[in-house]
């Protein structure tokens, strides 16, 4: 390994490091990611029948708590008017939870996994079907 190679490698590493610091943060903050899931759960709780709605409200409560802990404002996730297609709302919530996975880590990703389990179960009850890859974005 020559001194020239080591110097060049160091310069590249330095430039790469500077680039990362200078670039704006492209990834949304965890609170923003959680807000999308929270909005979808609030829509489901407004659309679904009593038992599924209660389960969805409980998930929304946990998501709202996580948003607050991350410095976000749960009220930024709009509450929806009653009614609508409950299965479509459950599918939308499930997609939101799946999409949140790469943007969360640790306890927040574990929370997203629990949201997936719950929303998928609700979708199965509402449609009477199980799917191979539910929650895949359309």
């Amino acid at each position, binding site marked *: *390994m020559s*001194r020239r*190679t*080591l*110097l*060049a*490698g*160091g*310069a*590249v*590493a*330095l430039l790469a490091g500077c680039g990362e610091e200078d670039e704006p943060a492209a990834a949304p903050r965890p609170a923003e990611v959680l807000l999308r899931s929270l909005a979808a759960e609030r829509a489901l709780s407004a659309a679904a029948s009593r*038992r599924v709605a209660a*389960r969805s409200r*409980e*998930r929304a409560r*946990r998501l709202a708590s996580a948003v607050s802990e991350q410095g976000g404002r749960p009220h930024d996730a709009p509450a929806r008017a009653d009614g609508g297609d409950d299965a479509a709302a459950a599918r939308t919530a*499930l997609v939101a*939870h*799946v*999409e949140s*996975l*790469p943007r969360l880590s*640790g306890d927040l*990703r*574990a929370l*997203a*996994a*629990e*949201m*997936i*389990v*719950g*929303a*998928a*179960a609700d*979708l*199965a*009850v509402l449609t009477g*079907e*199980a*799917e*191979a*890859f*539910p*929650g*895949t974005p359309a």
Partner: protein
Amino acid sequence: MTRRHLMALGAALVAARATPAAAAPVDDDGDVLLRLIALEDTATTADTGAAAHERAHAQAMRTLLDALGRRAPREPAAAGDEPEAARESRLIEAYAAALLELHDPSILRTAGTILASHSQHRVRARLEAGLDPFTSDP
């Protein structure tokens, strides 16, 4: 920044690329996929309505593993006579744990949809057994 600093940075960069630790996330994902494929392969041997989905899950995981340059053996263990709902609960736990270890966004999303599928299988199995579909479900 002195020549000495640049040389040290270059040496560190070269050393990082030369060691297995530099590729750790990819290797970790491959190991997790191998574990999940073994579970799915075993699940395909059970005589249940979910077998076709389990085969699709195993195939999807194999495709993702192939993309990492690795192959999974096809040596499924017999599933035994465990009740389907209990088997699906074990799969749910395995995927929920795996989501905390995975790094690649695409693998994470696919694993998330498979977690959702197993949650739906559990609902179906519970309903077929005359049980509450949501027990112990978030």
